[in-house]
């Protein structure tokens, strides 16, 4: 086959695949700017007749069709919960990952494996016991309670990724730094941490995305506007207005945008982080 034809063929295939990947999301985004009437009509209207921001206005409480959903609060909750739990998971995961990478101690191997396996427990199996225990502790329906849970579900993966990364950083460097006058802490902070940065960044984005998108547990642990996250909010949106697709799509866009921005910012680290932290470690 002439290479010209081949190139064209590859491009056609690529275009088609990218279409499948993008289409659903783009359709959602497009629908967010259309009216329900236009979306729901049969036969379908393919080319939007009029694009509108009404769906967003409604969500944020402007305009005529005020939707009784405090999206702004949910957004804030999501941000606070995701950022805090990501930071905590990174901190805890990093210390743990560092210990697994740098020290040998009895029970290390099984400890590592069990830590990983704890992540496999389906959220649905945990949600009620956690709910009951949390409510006895009085932290149900608080951001703190959700942060605690999200931190815990993110820790195993963070430990795993950072462990791989710290093992990539030769122990010599840490020792050299200590001899150069660093305390153990300084050596970590000035030498090992900067070198494991992309691993930590990718662990961070995974933790953030997990927290940002988590539903099964959050839906049990949050109830009021003080603690509900966006995915949970999406659900109560749909429960009240099942077929307001346009409004839902608008909300979906609001959920996606921060994740999109974040992933964009650190995508370079993401690939490097996953490869070297997870595989080579």
């Amino acid at each position, binding site marked *: 086959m002439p290479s010209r034809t081949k190139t064209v063929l590859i491009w056609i295939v690529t275009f088609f695949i990218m279409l499948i990947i993008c289409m659903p999301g783009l359709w959602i985004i497009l629908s967010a700017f259309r009216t329900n009437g236009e979306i729901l009509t049969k036969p379908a209207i393919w080319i939007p007749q009029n694009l509108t921001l009404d769906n967003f206005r409604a969500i944020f409480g402007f305009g005529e069709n005020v939707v009784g959903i405090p999206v702004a609060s949910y957004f804030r909750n999501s941000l606070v919960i995701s950022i805090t739990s990501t930071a905590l998971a990174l901190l805890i*995961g990093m210390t743990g990952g560092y210990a697994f990478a740098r020290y040998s101690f009895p029970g290390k191997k099984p400890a590592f494996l069990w830590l990983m396996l*704890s992540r496999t427990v389906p959220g649905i199996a945990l949600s009620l016991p956690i709910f009951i225990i949390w409510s006895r502790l009085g932290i149900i329906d608080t951001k703190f309670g959700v942060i605690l849970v999200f931190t*815990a579900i993110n820790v195993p993966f963070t430990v795993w990724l950072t462990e791989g990364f710290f093992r990539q950083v030769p122990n010599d460097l840490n020792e050299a730094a200590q001899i150069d006058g660093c305390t153990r802490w300084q050596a970590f902070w000035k030498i090992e941490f900067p070198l494991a940065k992309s691993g930590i960044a990718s662990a961070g984005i995974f933790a953030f995305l997990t927290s940002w998108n988590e539903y099964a547990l959050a839906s049990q642990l949050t109830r009021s506007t003080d603690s509900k996250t966006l995915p949970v909010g999406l659900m109560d949106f749909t429960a009240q207005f099942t077929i307001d697709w346009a409004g839902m799509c608008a909300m979906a866009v609001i959920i996606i945008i921060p994740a999109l921005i974040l992933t964009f910012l650190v995508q370079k680290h993401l690939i490097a982080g996953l490869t070297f932290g997870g595989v080579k470690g």
Partner: protein
Amino acid sequence: MTRLRRTIRENAVPFALISPAVLIILMVVLLPLIFSFYTSFSNYRLIRPDSLWDWVGLRNYKRIMGDWDFWVAFGRTVLFLTVALNLELLFGLGLALLVNKITWGQRTMRTIMMFPMMFSPILVGFQFKYLFNDTIGLVNNGLQSLGLTHEAIPFLVDRWLAFFSIAFAEIWMSTSIFAILILAGLFALPKDPIEAARVDGCSNWQVFKHITLPFLMPFIYIAMAIRSLDVARAFDIVDVMTGGGPAGRTELLWTLISRTAYDDARMGRANAMSYVAILLSIFFTWFFFNKLMEARKHLGAF
């Protein structure tokens, strides 16, 4: 006792460092699991708090053993995981090879490729519920507008179409993880062995089979391990799209457990089911983890 104390003293630093991780896991995972393990031996029903003390021994487990619907859901879950993970791997591999081939605009491709990863599973569920809707769905509208069909295809009702639909959603969401990792593997692929193989007279396919693929294996296993850690997140998708229905046609363990626990409020039985589901997850993860660890060692050779 003194030996234990000595062990602790000698390893004080690493123990202190892993203790926050261990503690939070104990609190958020183990403690609830112990509680739910206990309740799986009781007739615990949410709306009757006293029933927590209603010890029924192995009754819940015995009933599960004899519950045809449960085992069908179990089998379907295994099938779902197998189909989804394998297809994700296959598509991910194809996608990565394709993107790797493209030189112009590769960065953009890579970014687009990661698009589905950012979606909340629950969003993915709604998105495909919408797209596959039998009256207003994009897919049906598209097919009808193109004149390919005049019927409303019941994607979320028909036995196989419904399974296909939830699998499609899951695969759409997770293929990018595989693609990214495999792509990273391709970037790291050393040139020498490939050139050596070409000199030795290998065809493109032989190079791929004997050089590229073995090198990619660790990357594939890590993707499998990551996915199997998270695979229960498919619950959100299925719950939104079909809720396990209709007539249990898309019932997976997780939807069954969720309904038994909350709608039926029969927590004891649901928890007994949970334990079977947990064993299944642990098996999948264990399997890929061991593979990964082997592959990690193997990779040192490159």
